[in-house]
């Protein structure tokens, strides 16, 4: 720390160059922040502690195939099951059939199993009391400018309502929010309605549900419980497949695209470029300062200090640029989300991404500083002063 002013002076020696290098580091870490947020949200989806406690039971045939209502009581009796709830796709769309919204008809106790959905007590009560009531994610409320208390006309792309058309009308009685931002905003973008109202209204459903969600008493028992649940309907015409929520989400995400691979290769390209740019600048900076470094050595700085000085300089440069870049990504995320009108959802940057970013900053800083630093350390004073 004693030499901080020295390092600072080195950085300020050529302001333009430092500024330009800083800007390219900022660009790289801005990109890192945006991409890592996306990668993490893919990886973390359904991976929370609550998600591990929950099992999801769907049809083995296909995820659009429905299951009979009678399974509910039988699953509830499986030892190790704490509680069970169910849900159904509704296939809601607002204004245009292509403007689809995640919307499910859910059982009355659905929210009990999802502590990561925050619903105020008043809203919950209103939801329980209103047959046509819906809870709407905060993100959706904002996106379409809806208000609690208003009527919400929705089309269903799958089910007809009681009057034989696709038009349904609901009352917005409350809002949903994700208590845990790890969900990547998933809960902020959905609508929950009463399965009962849905089942009563549509002539197409006849007491069937899309999938069951089970909470187990003990996470270590979930494999056994899952097998027991699947055993209930083995060899029937509605065989089930039960897996942890994390596994279900992961296999679904995997089908979306090989996101990890693509994001990974982009990051690789970015960092390769970044290391090259910064490394080159550092080498230049050290080359230019040859005589100054020789003076430092002449007045008694040991080799090790010179090495550390140069290393500290490059690490400082990366830390500065990197921190600004990731912070910018944090600020830019919401803007991208708003700009894409909900089509893209960049999640907020969490401490995990920050820590990876910090490690990268220090790591790259050391990497690119190393060669110039060693060169500086090995300087022969006489040659350097003579400009040879």
């Amino acid at each position: 720390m004693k030499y901080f002013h020295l390092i600072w002076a080195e950085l300020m020696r050529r302001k333009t160059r430092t500024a330009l290098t800083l800007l390219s580091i900022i660009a790289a870490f801005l990109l890192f922040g945006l991409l890592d947020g996306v990668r993490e949200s893919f990886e973390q989806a359904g991976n929370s502690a609550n998600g591990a406690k929950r099992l999801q039971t769907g049809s083995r045939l296909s995820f659009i195939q429905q299951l009979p209502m009678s399974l509910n009581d039988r699953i509830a009796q499986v030892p190790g099951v704490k509680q069970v709830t169910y849900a159904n796709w509704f296939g809601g769309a607002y204004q245009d059939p292509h403007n689809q919204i995640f919307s499910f008809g859910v059982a009355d106790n659905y929210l009990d199993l999802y502590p990561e959905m925050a619903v105020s007590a008043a809203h919950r009560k209103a939801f329980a009391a209103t047959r046509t009531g819906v809870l709407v994610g905060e993100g959706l409320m904002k996106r379409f400018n809806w208000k609690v208390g208003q009527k919400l006309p929705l089309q269903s792309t799958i089910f007809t309502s009681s009057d034989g058309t696709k038009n349904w009308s609901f009352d917005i009685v409350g809002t949903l929010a994700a208590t845990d931002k790890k969900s990547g905003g998933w809960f902020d973008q959905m609508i929950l309605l009463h399965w009962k109202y849905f089942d009563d209204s549509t002539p197409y459903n006849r007491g069937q549900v899309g999938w069951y969600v089970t909470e187990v008493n003990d996470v270590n028992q979930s494999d056994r419980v899952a097998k027991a649940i699947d055993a209930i309907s083995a060899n029937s015409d509605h065989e089930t497949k039960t897996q942890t929520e994390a596994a279900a989400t992961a296999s679904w995400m995997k089908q979306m695209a090989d996101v990890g691979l693509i994001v990974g290769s982009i990051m690789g390209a970015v960092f390769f470029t970044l290391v090259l740019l910064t490394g080159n600048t550092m080498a230049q900076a050290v080359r230019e300062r040859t005589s100054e470094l020789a003076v430092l050595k002449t007045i008694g700085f040991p080799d090790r200090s010179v090495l550390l000085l140069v290393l500290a300089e490059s690490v400082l440069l990366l830390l500065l640029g990197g921190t600004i870049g990731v912070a910018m990504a944090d600020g830019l995320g919401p803007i991208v989300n708003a700009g894409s009108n909900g089509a893209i959802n960049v999640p907020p940057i969490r401490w995990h991404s920050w820590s990876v970013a910090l490690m990268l900053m220090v790591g790259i800083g050391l990497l690119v500083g190393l060669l110039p630093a060693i060169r500086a350390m090995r300087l022969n004073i006489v040659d350097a002063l003579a400009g040879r």
Partner: protein
Amino acid sequence: MKKFLSFLRGLLTFAALAAGLVAWALAPWPVLLGLAVAFALWMLLTRSGQQAASVAGVGISTLSQRAGSSSVVVIGIAGVVAVLVAMLSMAEGYRETLARTGSDDTAMVLRGASAAEVMSTLDLASINVIEQAPGIARDADGRPLASPETVVAANLPIKGGKPDEDGSVQLRGVGDRAWQVRPQIKIVQGRKFETGKREVVVGSGAQRQFAGMEVGKQIRLGSEQWAVVGIFKSGDATDSEVWADADMVASTYRRGASRNAVIAKLSDAKQFKAFKAALAGDPRLQVDTTTTAEYFAKQSEAMTKVIRIIGIVVGSIMAIGAVFGALNTMFATVATRAREIATLRAIGFRGLPVVVAVMLETMLLALLGGLIGGALAWVIFNGYTASTIAGGVGQLTFDFRVTGQLLWSGLKWALAIGFVGGLFPALRAATLPVTSALRAL
């Protein structure tokens, strides 16, 4: 005052640059070719042009001495172009695959307000009405070429996945007329399935995606075993599907007599309006009618847009990073050659040739970077197969497509980056007072 003026000049340069870049991005190639020709003529015919050429010649011939720092520009820009072209080629491949699917003279009839085939249901009565609508082409026996089809999302084990890992495939139950409605589908191996048997034919895309899709093997679809009897190829989104007999699929998935959609071959694309109006006007029906081309275009819209936005955001940020890298390198180049440039100016070379020479050098490096990046993207990603969920249900397999158009726009980006990266150092080289530059070391 002097400071303010120089600030104003910087601001003006920047504004002009931004406007120039927008024009550059929008300009079609003939305009750019014209520019290049005009520039070449200027270099050949005018005095300052010849001066610029000779200065640039010196700069370029000494490039190899500055190989280390010059390669930074080349590699940085190559990275940008490679990433950008790769991302856009993914969007392009996806869009192309769906755009090739469907035609203007086949219509798809879905139950009203259904966003995708799989969400629709049509009962037997409606299907009979639809088949008798005017405008449908007829086969040699006079039967209408309309194919009622069942579409379900079926779970199948993924190739190379864990034993319990399932993916979703679009399983289409069809009758014999489906083959006539889609003449582009060719059986490339094995044979068609037989009516009334649990046999499937598999699209070549689905074959790549899922395990056990070989002729002669058995797969489990629903609760039954099915024999794979053939592989088909169509060159479009249908390649990702598995086809079987409609009645067998309906019974396995408990669909009864209802079907998801009717695909009808029209006698002529012009008949579509009349066909649509006839169905809309029929009080017995509640259906949406689109041409298949329109249906698939609509399906790909959102996803293509998302991939493009991501590609351009990522590309832009990387480009900004690369611009700063190029600026840095070129500033350094100008600094090390300050004396040389000052000498040139002292013996009578004007500012413009010097600016042009430095710019030319950077643009040359950028061009090289753009070519390398484009080549990399082409070698690695052209034909690279990816898949994603499409139409709400099945995995759609598509190839990345690095088209000439994309390579060209990648090259344009590279040159734009080179331009920005070279301009300011060039201006600096030209405006640095000769006396102080001569003293510089």
